[in-house]
């Protein structure tokens, strides 16, 4: 029930956003699908940034361990902040890409 509430909440605000977009802002409803695809591209970018951050972080940690003998825990990478930073990187990169193409 708790989970259904969260989904209903997000579904409700999404429906409201569609209504506001179509009626108040005059956005074409038929372009909603391509908007969703654009959103998937940004999420895909986020995954790429996260993968790159994790790979680089792991490489640095293993290199520090191997070359200096100083122990750095891999669990440093186990932080939700890295996901948020990756999302931020993806949004900025996408905005830059759009600006560059406009």
């Amino acid at each position, binding site marked *: 029930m*708790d*989970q259904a509430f*969260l*989904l209903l909440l997000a579904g409700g605000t999404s429906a409201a956003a569609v209504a506001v977009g179509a009626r108040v802002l005059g956005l074409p409803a038929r372009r909603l699908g391509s908007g969703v*695809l654009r*959103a*998937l*591209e*940004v*999420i*895909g*970018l*986020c*995954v*790429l940034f996260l993968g790159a951050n994790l790979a680089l972080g792991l490489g640095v940690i293993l290199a520090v361990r191997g070359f200096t003998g100083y*122990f750095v*825990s*891999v*669990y440093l*990478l*186990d932080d*939700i902040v890295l996901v948020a930073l990756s999302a931020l990187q993806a949004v900025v990169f996408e905005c830059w890409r759009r600006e560059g193409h406009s």
Partner: protein
Amino acid sequence: MRDKRRLLRITGGIAAAAFLAAAFTPAVNFWSFWMAPPRRADAVEAIVVLGGGGVTAQGALTERSMRGAVDGILLYRKGVAPLVVFSGSAKEGGRDEARARAALARDCGLPVAAILTSSTARTTREEALRMRALLDARGIRKIMLVVDGPGMSRAVQVFERLGFLVVTDPAAGELRLGGGPEDRLNLMRQLAMESAARVYYRLAGFL
């Protein structure tokens, strides 16, 4: 260019679907259950509580570390073994986890002679090596491992590789379907970390 965008969309679609499946279905609970090793509970010579969670800057056990310590204490109280070994290192000169856990066990009434600590190991492999050095001297081979989170299977394999006979805390292999979306996402993060650790341990020849 179009192919790259298509690839990004597919990646994004998979990520979004995985997020929704992890948060709103019991998929990760089943994944966690599947990763737990099947081991029967049996009488052992020592209960080994591996490090996990550490201590706070104020020197108190974290919730996760406390959970492991309490599991070890309760198993001792049930008579599973006459000895409990707490593992857990210190962070940057702070109080070490193993001693903090041992202090808790003493406060709970466990006799000093029934408690050992190991506070220098920083990885599961190092913990196994330290335990071998510590327990070999006492002729102990059969142990029960207490591990918080999905790292049990890897820990069991590492310890068995070093010659231990390992049984696990019976509660560790249970299928737990409870928890909300946030709990499941946390569990998924732990499972992802553990999967990566398994790959690393396999490549390093520790498994």
